């Protein structure tokens, strides 16, 4: 294949990766930014989103798009509810202690994963895409659905940005992130904000999973890779920074796509990890993060 089309394919693949990664990493970043909780179980919320998407779309008969749309709405809501319960039952009782919550979310990771294995099973199950239009380029064919993922993800990111910067809920969240004690003194129900943010973070991961599941499959171990990549993105972009997360996701997604097409996927991972190390050494707060006070 000639260089031009080859590069186009690589860039398209990279953008799809970046789109999903941005949503997932944003969830992780929000939870850390506002609550100072490193949620190791984040990838499992991603997996739950995919598994629920499968369950919902198979329960609804009729056109594939119907089941998918239902999954797109319901799966994140259910995952958010589960996250809310987990937050009330576990994180709150630990007073959001940074060390204890890491251990607790590791526990949650295993519990969720093994429950999925028990009730959903070890198979990888497919979800039908809402439409299966194949875009025929002169050199190769490409999935129309994959392109729609990029658009959907961009929309969701804009919506999240709007909520965070232009609404009262966003203001309350930012105030809590800036200084939770002062926020509390000003009458902000920090406790409820935490619960909401944790649920929102999980929901973002779940939405990303529902979007990706028609081109991937629902499998109980699928949460590991997104978790790792999300951490990489969040560290490079700066914890708690929306802009940084999106920029880092595009950077990692595109470079992963292009490097693994032209060289090898292993090299792409090596470079991403090296980048993390460099950022940690020279700019520990991340590209767009603010230095901690």
């Amino acid at each position, binding site marked *: 294949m000639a260089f031009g089309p080859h590069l186009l394919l690589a860039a398209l693949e990279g953008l799809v990766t970046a789109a999903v990664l941005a949503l997932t990493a944003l969830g992780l970043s929000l939870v850390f930014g506002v609550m100072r909780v490193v949620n190791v179980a984040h990838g499992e919320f991603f997996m739950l989103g995919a598994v629920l998407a499968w369950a919902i779309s198979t329960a609804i008969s009729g056109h594939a798009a119907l089941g998918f749309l239902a999954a797109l709405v319901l799966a994140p809501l259910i995952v958010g509810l589960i996250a809310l319960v987990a937050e009330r039952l576990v994180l709150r009782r630990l007073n959001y202690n940074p060390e204890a919550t890491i251990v607790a979310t590791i526990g949650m990771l295993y519990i969720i994963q093994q429950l999925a294995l028990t009730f959903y099973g*070890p198979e990888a199950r497919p979800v039908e895409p809402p439409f299966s239009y194949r875009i025929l380029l002169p050199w190769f064919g490409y999935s129309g659905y994959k392109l729609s993922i990029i658009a959907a993800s961009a929309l969701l990111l804009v919506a999240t940005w709007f909520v965070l910067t232009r609404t009262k809920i966003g203001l309350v969240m930012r105030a809590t992130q800036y200084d939770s004690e002062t926020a509390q003194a000003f009458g902000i129900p920090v406790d409820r904000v935490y619960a909401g943010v944790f649920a929102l973070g999980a929901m973002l991961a779940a939405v990303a999973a529902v979007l990706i599941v028609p*081109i991937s*499959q629902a499998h109980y171990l*699928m949460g590991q890779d997104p978790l790792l990549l999300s951490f990489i993105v969040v560290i490079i972009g700066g914890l708690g920074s929306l802009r940084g997360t999106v920029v880092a996701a595009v950077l990692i997604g595109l470079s992963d796509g292009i490097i693994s097409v032209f060289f090898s996927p292993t090299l792409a991972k090596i470079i991403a990890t090296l980048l993390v190390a460099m950022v940690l050494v020279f700019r520990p707060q991340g590209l767009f993060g603010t230095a901690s006070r």
Partner: protein
Amino acid sequence: MTDKNGFFDLSRTGLTRRTALKGLAAGAGLAVAPGFVRYSQAQSSAPIKIGFQSHRTGIGAAYGRWYERTTAAAVKAINDAGGINGRPVEVIIEDDGTDPGRGAEVVGKFATQHKTDIVYGTLFSHVVIGSAPAAGEAKMPYFVVSEGHHVASTKLNRYVFQPGITDVKSQIQAMAPWIAANAGKKVTQIFPDFAFGYDHRDYLPPALKAQGAEVIAQIAIPPTESSFTKYFPQIPAETEVIYHVMVGPAVLTFVKELGEFYGSNRPQLFGFIDSLEATDINSPGLEFLDGSHFWEGSPRYAQPDDSAAQKAYRAAVGIDDNGAAVGDPKDVSTAAHMFGCWETLYVVKKAMEDAGYKGPEDRAKLVEATEALTEFAEGPEHPQGPKTFNGKIHQCFGIQNISKVEGGRLNVVHKTKIEDGLYEPEGDYTTQAL
């Protein structure tokens, strides 16, 4: 580490010495409870204990579940017919997590804790390779149903056997003539970047060359990969056949993306069913496979010429004519491999009877008796077909099936002969000390 709230301070969380001791005692009780001292009778009537190293979790979990069902059916049949040497067979299952490190631990646990007579069962090549040294060290006969070439390569040790399923090198050699004659001469290989994939990488090119065909590109894909489109530009345009071996949950994506990339104008496809074991061939996105060919150890779908033994085996294991669990058409089996569990257990039975096996002290005799076996006739004990066994390399050789995807099912279009898959032994386990 700051511990402001005192989570790691035992005195503050109310954990006293007494509660700690209570917890320890309860934990110890739980650990001791299963599997221990359950049989205190005389050894003559005590069951023969088979330690089953199963992929209950991890990427092999779908295989593990069906290996367990097949094993349960075979053990029931053996016990109903009087057991082995008049003793019932008891299977003890431990999960290896489809992980080599854990696999070796499980073998150790069977040897020292459960004190099983043999260890049996595992599939994934990296687990077998990781566990074999532990089996050799414990002098524990280790019967695997793995398909990889590692046993027959004689690089493991004298205690490892694969008597129930043909190894990959033999499978490839037997099928290469059919691929060259029917699919095409210019082949691109796509395979997973670990042991099982390397068997394909190393043995397909010479096997095809002998038939006047050639491998023009080899594409290794990391086992954790979840998206494949980026690899497809590496497939040369003149490719006539794509030979694909993928394992793990991402295979559906692989096929779907291949479909999007090529559309209807695709090269011939030849694959190993390993990719689609436990997966419904009629899943959305798999339409692209229509008309392509697969290797199958034992056919998933009931075939018109199935023997009475094959039918009885399918009924005993509980799979319907589509190869799914009876009563649950969505629960698709790993039919192409799991027959090996059934057949391996009957080989163990035969070898134990030949050896007059009484207990762990006879393990060396069991190894020698297994090595003395030469062939297994087709029948209720070997429903997949007749096999020969080479005691020097601890490997059996049987027939292979090539099936075509048509009308939403797999129909066998070609069966190889045992002789097609025979090769020169690469070593001799029997020269190793017991």
